[in-house]
């Protein structure tokens, strides 16, 4: 009887800190654990007792990569609790802000985190020496995404302009329209990116996913919609906690989210969004989705890089549409009165669905907060996929096996800082 343990103690090119432990018996997978050992940061408890106006700025601090997502889910949930309906102009401006975050996050992941795996490089730095022009293209798209965040959010990191009821200040038309020429260049760059990554060699690997994302009758999902699944369900966001449940697991400081009634794992993120919302993609993004030769929805997690390319196109195309027609919202922020109540909202962070729920008192203080980040939802699915992937990835070369496992994990762009919070792989063959 042969046992083998493979441990990647520091999984690289993911956000946050964690490890991967794999135990094999006679080369059969006995145990797989995505070990998240960063200490929990207890943001939900930090919010209790605070004024609701502080919530968007505090939750933005959960993640330096996707602060907008935390701001968006929090303001929408608080607005639901207060009974506020935002104006169409504010709504469009929020979508524009979200486009900026998708752009900077996806461009970073495609070019510096994930593409090196497909091209056989150890890092984005090594890849840049062989593909400098490609990396410059990716970094330029990322830069312009950040510029949009700066104009709309007040600054590129931890934007400060988002308020319950709208924005503290509506950006000037000139400041936004100045971005148009660069965004036109970026749209073409995103098309080239998608064609480039679609030409990579993808492992022959497929999972039977239950895909979960928001869906909206009129638009590609970002700020609102119903929660839909590849099983054909359509769930009101208000019923999210009836259908999805977070559970503690011994090996992770992050909670694991599963389907409440069945205990099934599920997948959120770009692969789920593209797969479930193909018809809502912008015209160029839809054309490229058809052109790349992938049958959507796909069960191959390695296709995630193509889905991100398609969403880059969508984000630039939608951003351009909003930028060209932009008129400042008047007023930029709606007034409201405090009421005792509760509200929830889900938006689509770059890595997938992000759910927030708040209860507030009649003085506008937070009584209760619940935040379910995308990586917590994907973690059980990543472990399930590794169980399927390891027999295919396994070799006598421990370093190669570890690398193959890391390659798969990076496809989900896990943000461990959000889910509590990096990655180190241990394979046990004792």
């Amino acid at each position, binding site marked *: 009887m042969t046992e083998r343990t493979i441990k990647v103690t520091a999984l*690289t*090119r*993911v*956000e*946050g800190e964690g490890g991967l432990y794999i135990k094999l018996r006679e080369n059969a997978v006995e145990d797989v654990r995505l070990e998240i050992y960063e*200490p929990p*940061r*207890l*943001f939900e408890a*930090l919010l209790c007792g605070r004024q609701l106006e502080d919530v968007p700025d*505090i939750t933005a*601090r959960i993640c*330096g*990569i996707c602060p907008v997502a935390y701001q968006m889910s929090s303001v929408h949930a608080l607005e639901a609790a207060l009974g506020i309906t935002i104006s169409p102009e504010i709504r469009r401006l929020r979508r524009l802000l979200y486009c900026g975050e998708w752009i900077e996050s996806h461009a*970073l992941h495609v070019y*510096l*985190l994930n593409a090196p795996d497909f091209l056989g490089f150890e*890092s*984005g*730095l090594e890849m*840049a*020496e062989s593909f*400098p022009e490609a*990396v*410059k293209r990716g*970094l330029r798209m*990322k*830069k312009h995404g*950040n*510029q949009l965040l700066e104009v709309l959010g007040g*600054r*590129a*990191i*931890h934007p400060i302009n988002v308020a319950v009821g709208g924005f503290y200040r509506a950006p000037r038309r000139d400041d936004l329209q100045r971005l148009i020429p660069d965004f036109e260049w970026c749209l073409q760059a995103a098309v080239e990116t998608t064609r480039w990554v679609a030409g990579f060699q993808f492992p022959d690997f497929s999972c039977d996913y239950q895909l979960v994302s928001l869906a909206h009758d009129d638009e590609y999902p970002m700020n609102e919609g119903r929660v839909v699944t590849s099983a054909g369900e359509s769930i009101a966001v208000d019923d999210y906690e009836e259908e999805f449940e977070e559970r503690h697991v011994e090996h992770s400081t992050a909670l694991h989210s599963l389907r409440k009634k069945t205990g099934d794992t599920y997948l959120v993120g770009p692969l789920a969004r593209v797969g479930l919302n193909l018809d809502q993609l912008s015209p160029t993004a839809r054309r490229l989705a058809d052109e790349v030769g992938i049958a959507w929805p796909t069960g191959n997690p390695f296709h995630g890089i193509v889905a991100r390319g398609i969403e880059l196109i969508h984000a630039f195309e939608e951003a351009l549409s909003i930028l060209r027609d932009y008129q400042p919202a008047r007023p930029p922020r709606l007034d409201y009165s405090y009421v005792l109540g509760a509200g929830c909202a889900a938006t689509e962070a770059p890595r997938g669905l992000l759910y927030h729920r708040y209860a507030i008192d009649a003085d506008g203080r937070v009584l209760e907060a619940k935040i379910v980040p995308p990586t917590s939802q994907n973690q059980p699915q990543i472990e399930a996929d590794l169980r399927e992937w390891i027999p295919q990835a396994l070799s006598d070369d421990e370093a190669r096996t570890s690398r193959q496992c890391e390659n798969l994990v990076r496809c989900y762009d896990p943000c461990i*800082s959000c889910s509590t919070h990096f990655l180190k792989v241990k394979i046990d063959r004792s």
Partner: protein
Amino acid sequence: MSSSRTLIVGIGSPHGDDQAGWLVALGLASEIRPRDIDVRQASSPVQLLDWLSGIEQLVICDACRGLGGVGNVRRWDWPARELADAEWSGTHDFSVPAVLDLAESLGQRPRHVVIWTVEGNPRGALAPLSPEVADAIPNMVQWIISDLRATTPCTNSHS
């Protein structure tokens, strides 16, 4: 002050001693305002890559671990390989040294790069600064201003 185009970047987060880079940048922004010096805050070293076009001198301020006692401030002229041994907290493995190496590969690294580090202690979310780092920040601001005014390189360490 330098006549070349200079960028000062404080790298950090709102958490514990990791705030140091941001606070140093704020301190510098309030004290120096020449048109050819831009002061920014970043949450990840990778953001530097957005801002390097046309920059001749780059000054980076960041908290680090493994380079001395808590509150110890040091100045480094890049390349400084000893810095690679320090513990950096950049996201997605993009530490300051990794980003500067990437900028070099892409032909985007400014001619002069100076890195100021302050040794920090890991603390919890939204935690305040440790007293040692809080005490070090005003000194760090003044040393950086003096350094920018000087035409000759400073000493390599302040503690």
